[in-house]
């Protein structure tokens, strides 16, 4: 197995948490080597944010590969900027509520998930990253969904209302991801 994933979006969209949760789940449930790299800059808020998850059977080389297999983009700017970095045959998961640009290329699969709208329907924009993580797992089936959910509940909101909200958001995303996968096969 070899995974090179980049997640990009606005600061505040929980971009880093998608990468962190996914890599934590890989660490907890598999023997893969996994590296999570949250790119950092000088800006504290309001800027763009991105991170990388690299996992492999063998030692991880660059934690920040210039070409990735998969890309999750949460806003339009990131789609324009980073879609050229996806290798041929790769997958781009987009927050279709905000991403209106296309990849401008035919050799990648686009998986559009309206996560901002879904999160708003669920009553909190805060969970849009959990919806996306659910969709990613639903589509890729990379690791067991229960293990990912376990990570979410362990690392995020300890308050009962957050637990329920995160569970619902993850389940909703999961269903959307599976639906998209079914449509592609």
């Amino acid at each position, binding site marked *: 197995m070899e995974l090179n994933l980049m997640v990009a979006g606005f600061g505040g969209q929980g971009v880093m948490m998608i990468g962190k949760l996914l890599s934590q789940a890989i660490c907890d449930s598999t023997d893969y080597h996994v590296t*999570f790299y949250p790119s*950092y800059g000088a800006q504290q808020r309001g800027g763009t944010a991105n991170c990388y998850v690299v996992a492999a059977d063998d030692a991880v080389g660059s934690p920040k590969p*210039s070409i990735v297999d998969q890309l999750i983009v949460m806003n339009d700017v990131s789609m324009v900027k980073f879609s050229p970095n996806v290798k041929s045959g790769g997958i781009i998961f987009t927050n279709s509520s905000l991403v209106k640009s296309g990849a401008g290329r035919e050799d990648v699969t686009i998986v559009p998930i309206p996560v901002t709208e879904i999160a708003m329907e669920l009553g909190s924009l805060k969970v849009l990253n959990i919806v996306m993580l659910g969709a990613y797992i639903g589509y890729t089936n990379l690791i067991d969904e229960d293990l990912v959910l376990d990570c979410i509940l362990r690392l995020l909101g300890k308050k009962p209302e957050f637990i329920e909200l995160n569970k619902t958001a993850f389940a909703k995303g999961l269903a959307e991801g599976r639906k998209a996968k079914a449509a592609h096969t």
Partner: protein
Amino acid sequence: MKKVFMKGCEAIAEAAVRAGARFYAGYPITPQNEIPEYMSRRMPQVGGVFLQGESEIASVTMVYGAGAGGTRAMTSSSSVGISLKSEGISYCAGARVPMVYVNMQRGGPGVGTIQAAQQDYFQATRASGNGGFKMIVLAPATVQEAVDMTYRAFDLAERDRNPVLILGDGVLGTIMEPVVLPEMKSDEEVAALKQKNRDWAIVGHSREEKRGFIDPGYWSTDMQEAHCVSLNEMYERWQREDVQVEELYLEDAELVFVAYGTSARIAKSALKLLRAEGHRVGMIRPLTVSPFPAASFDKIDYARCKCVLDIEMSIPAQMIYDVELALRERCAVETCLRSGGNLIERDDVVKKAHEILKGGVER
């Protein structure tokens, strides 16, 4: 062994605590802020001391004071902050005060960039302060190595009564990786370690005892010279006994990579691709950049080897001087470099290797 998923900076801090560090002082600078932040939470839990100094200078000097009292002590910073610490580091080396410090390198010179670079190699291996002292400099490439090296660094520092440097970079400090943490030393073990230092530490000795005396200098030129001579004997002993290195495929290599830290992990992934393509590429990865693994270069078969490729995130290349000294002109040296906070790309290394192996390198 149970693995945990930890950020490089935090894993280093935890390894230090487990090794018995009970004093940490530091000053905020990116990309190592998670070390002081972690220590501020962790030290009080183990009866240790965390102090945020008013500057890097004060922080390293606090460590000098704590170390002079026999406590396992640590500081950390990044590049431009390390420059400020050089005064205190030189004092520790001169006065034989053990201490461990971390440099999570960023771009330079000056304030540079906050992203990862390897621009402080000269500083780390040649002149971490005035006076021409040397240190054991450990260069981890993964979070696990960073943890293991930090744990060991305190033993080395105490054995030699000398500073030990963990030379990382912004990537190592920032990434999260699975790691198996070393055993936590018990309170009794930590107390015993401190007690072992009591003879020389300035904890207060009665008039009947030999007093503790921490002196970074001498009034007598002959005494200072004798001190330098004895330090030099220690440096030479390191060269014989403390070199650590990873060597890959040196026996059949037509091209040998030399890289440390983050550059090395990327170079190694390039090596794997190239070997899979059938290219005979080897690698020397210094785990100690000081003492430098010069002897590894004697294991290369120069009848086969066309070239050594020095791979660093530094422009100009810095480690290349150690490489050239070790090579003694037995084959050509080429470089693959990035700088300014940009990482080495695996594909750039692969491309450069292809050029060299085809013989098409432009000088």
